[in-house]
């Protein structure tokens, strides 16, 4: 938290140092005040109020213009209800709305649902829907669309939907503007899964009774959002034009949003520097350039807006075969990795040390605890060596203990550097590691289908709730050969299963947090994974662009309030 606050504070100082503008703009003001805790409530105010505050500060949004963003890589489809591939989430929410939006503490804000009420027993949620909302084809949006989207689409064909909506038995529609979720058991995580990005609201009249994947509207989406889909020139761009009948009167500000696809990182950076592109999220501009640009006059570099992703960099052990079936060996490696070094030298400072399976992002909700076995102690290398001796792997005459193959997750250059770093650290411990770098499909098959590996690097998003993002890596029922990003270490513990299963349906926040605290202690002790760092993605955007990052889902939201200074 401290370093984030500093970063924002620095930004403000840097800004006010510029002669073009002394006033702190509203977005920064909200970010800073929310983070500094100056006014705890402000992040929770509905956007109209915050907007009014901004206008009072003399920052009147300007209408018109085109927002050109770069999306990397090109999305495979626009069917965000069926495919959660990263780049899809950057464009689809411009067209589709969700029931809810979120503030930076992950608390729900009104979306298509203007209010909601969770039943006393936690087994029903009543949503009051915004009235007078129309889809881009002119048909009204009603509770029937909510029912259809949840029950027939998301719960059935969404990659994470079956988990998010596992307890939803029915969606009742007493009238056109009321939708009541009926749950088998309480599902506290459900309220975190209703954004436009995670659970888009689809037009029933265009999808019902059709083959969802091959429906023509899969790639020509019709939603209720601020921008209408116009065209997709493959390999080139996607174009979205302003929806004049958007239900938030007066919004959006931009006439058009264009998503461009540029394969080469250096070119993306050049396009931003030259102002051809105004917005690039998810490290589309690589960290090495982001670092350089962070002092530039044209663009701003920020790590805000990924709070609902909460990605964690990990080293995963194959806990079913030697030598990593031994807890002491795993712990030894957890001790040996210098998290600070990795962050500073491999990720250019864009990250925070991780302490366990739940990201410190969840501090605000009380779920996170740092009270676990800590590996960042001064004499960690000595402890690591001692643990390896105790585990029955003493150094041989040539100074080595054993040999392994270290697989590298195939997501780019940083991961290779990280692999080389791990190799060096292991060598210090007397473990000879050879590196293996394969392409994505091959690597996924190796780790999550064939389990043919010793130690691999990996990264997982822990999302907005442990049930959605964390549970899958530690639950015994999440050992599912052929399904990527689940329990690939195949480590299990009956107690952890029990904790995860009871936490998933525990409506009481305090009790639920206690269950997750115990879960963190147990898993860190067993170390089936080395939690290295909480990855911070960077967004690079033009200084003239305002109010693009107003949510923990930033680029995965609609940009209805974003505007460009003249």
């Amino acid at each position, binding site marked *: 938290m401290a370093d984030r606050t500093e970063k924002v504070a620095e930004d403000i100082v840097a800004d006010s140092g510029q002669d073009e503008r002394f006033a702190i703009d509203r977005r920064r003001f909200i970010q800073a005040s929310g983070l500094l805790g100056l006014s705890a409530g402000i992040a929770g105010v509905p956007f109209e109020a915050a907007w009014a505050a901004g206008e009072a500060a003399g920052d009147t949004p300007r209408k018109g213009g085109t927002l050109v963003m770069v999306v990397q890589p090109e999305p495979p489809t626009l069917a965000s209800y069926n495919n959660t*591939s990263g780049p899809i989430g950057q464009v689809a929410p411009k067209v589709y709305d969700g029931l809810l939006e979120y503030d930076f503490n992950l608390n729900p804000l009104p979306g298509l649902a203007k209010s909601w009420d969770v039943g006393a027993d936690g087994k029903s949620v009543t949503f009051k829907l915004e009235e007078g909302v129309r889809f881009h084809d002119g048909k009204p949006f009603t509770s029937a669309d909510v029912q259809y989207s949840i029950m027939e689409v998301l719960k059935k064909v969404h990659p994470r939907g079956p988990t998010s909506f596992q307890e939803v038995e029915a969606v009742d529609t007493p009238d056109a503007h009321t939708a009541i979720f009926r749950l088998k058991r309480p599902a506290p995580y459900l309220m975190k899964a209703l954004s436009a990005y995670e659970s888009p609201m689809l037009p029933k009249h265009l999808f019902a009774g059709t083959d969802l994947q091959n429906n023509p509207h899969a790639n020509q989406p019709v939603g209720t959002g601020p921008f209408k889909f116009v065209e997709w020139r493959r390999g080139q761009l996607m174009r979205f034009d302003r929806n004049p009948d958007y239900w938030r009167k007066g919004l959006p500000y931009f006439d058009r949003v264009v998503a461009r696809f540029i*394969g*080469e990182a250096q*070119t993306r950076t050049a396009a931003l520097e030259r102002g051809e592109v105004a917005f690039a999220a998810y490290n589309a501009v690589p960290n090495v350039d982001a670092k350089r640009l962070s002092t530039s006059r044209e663009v701003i570099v920020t790590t805000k807006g990924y709070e609902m992703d909460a990605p964690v960099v990990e080293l995963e052990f194959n806990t079913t075969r030697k030598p990593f079936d031994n807890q002491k060996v795993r712990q030894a490696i957890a001790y040996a990795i210098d998290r600070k070094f990795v962050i500073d030298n491999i990720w250019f400072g864009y990250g925070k040390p991780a302490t366990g399976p739940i990201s410190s992002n969840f501090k605000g909700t009380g779920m996170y605890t740092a009270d676990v076995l800590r590996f960042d102690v001064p004499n960690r290398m000595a402890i690591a060596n001692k643990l390896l001796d105790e585990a029955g792997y003493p150094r041989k005459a040539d100074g080595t203990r054993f040999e392994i193959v270290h697989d590298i997750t195939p997501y780019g250059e940083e991961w290779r550097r990280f692999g080389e770093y791990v190799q060096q650290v292991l060598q210090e411990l007397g473990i000879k590691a050879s590196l293996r770098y394969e392409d994505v499909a091959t690597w*996924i098959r190796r780790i999550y289908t064939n389990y043919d590996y010793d130690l691999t690097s990996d990264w997982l998003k822990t999302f907005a709730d442990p049930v959605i993002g964390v549970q899958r890596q530690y639950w015994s029922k999440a050992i599912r050969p052929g399904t990527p990003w689940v329990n690939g270490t195949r480590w299990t513990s009956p107690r952890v299963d029990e904790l995860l299963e009871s936490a998933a349906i525990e409506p009481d926040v305090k009790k639920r947090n206690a269950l997750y605290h115990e879960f963190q202690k147990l898993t860190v002790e067993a170390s089936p994974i080395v939690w290295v760092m909480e990855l911070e993605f960077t967004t690079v955007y033009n200084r003239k662009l305002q109010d693009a990052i107003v949510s923990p889902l930033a680029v995965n939201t609609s940009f209805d309030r974003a505007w460009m200074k003249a």
Partner: protein
Amino acid sequence: MLRRLLQAVPTLLVIAVLNFCVIQLAPGDAADVLAGESGGATPEYMTQLRHRFGLDRSKFVQLAVYVKNVLGFDLGYSFRDGMPVRELILQRLGPTLLLMGTTIVFSIVLGVFLGLVAAAHVNTWRDNLLSVLSLLSYATPLFWVGLMLIGVFSLKLGWFPTSGMESVAAFYEGWDRVVDIAHHLVLPALTLSLFYMALYTRLMRAAMLEQWGMDYVTTARAKGLTERRIALRHVLRNAVLPVVTMAGVQIGALLGGSVVVETVFGWPGMGLLAFQSLFARDVNLLLGIFFVSACLVVVVNLLVDLVYFALDPRIEVR
């Protein structure tokens, strides 16, 4: 001519079958990649995907279905993109041919001209300078040349856009659009041309020098023709043959080489599509691209034969 065309049919079929077999060697399938990109999926979702892609059928059935479709000019469906392969390729064919065509014309014309100049002034400073330049542009990696051109002409001088095929903030129509696309075409075409131009310069120079020593040149001189007329009328026609041969062979390579240029300049061509579909294990699309590329190579080779015929009447087209 007709016979040549008919001969191409079995060739293309063999290529299609070979392509299919080679692709099967890559581990992992499209469902793995899709689920991977999604950051997770349920087993039911995976089974459903595999069934929909036809990946749960045996390889022989898959091959049989593919060959049958190719015979009916049906390139199949790209499940990843949710579009027929034919449409996907057609969208990309235009930009690819534009880039390829410009590059071929530009590099051959310039290569032949520079080769001619170098040969005419052999072992002088002009020849040496051209040799050094062509060696440099031949040996420099394409992506580096591309990035440097962007750095100089887009960032520093601001003459050309960094990337893309047209201005997306404007969406021009009519002639403005043509001009806009031409403006965007300059840097990628130049990057790709430099490499091939260098090659043709060297080739042309060598061929010219070789032809100068031939008996017919002596004969022409004996007839009292000027050196200039001998060079342009007799030697050039003979010397350009190897260049044309080389260009024909390189069409395939040009498709591949443009992957790099397309990536650097965000040019929506077919090379990039092939590259992406390989990593996505989008087998149908990849096979479709291979097939269309094979067809292109066959057609271009036919064209090359026609050019031979025009340049050298001794060669007959049968």
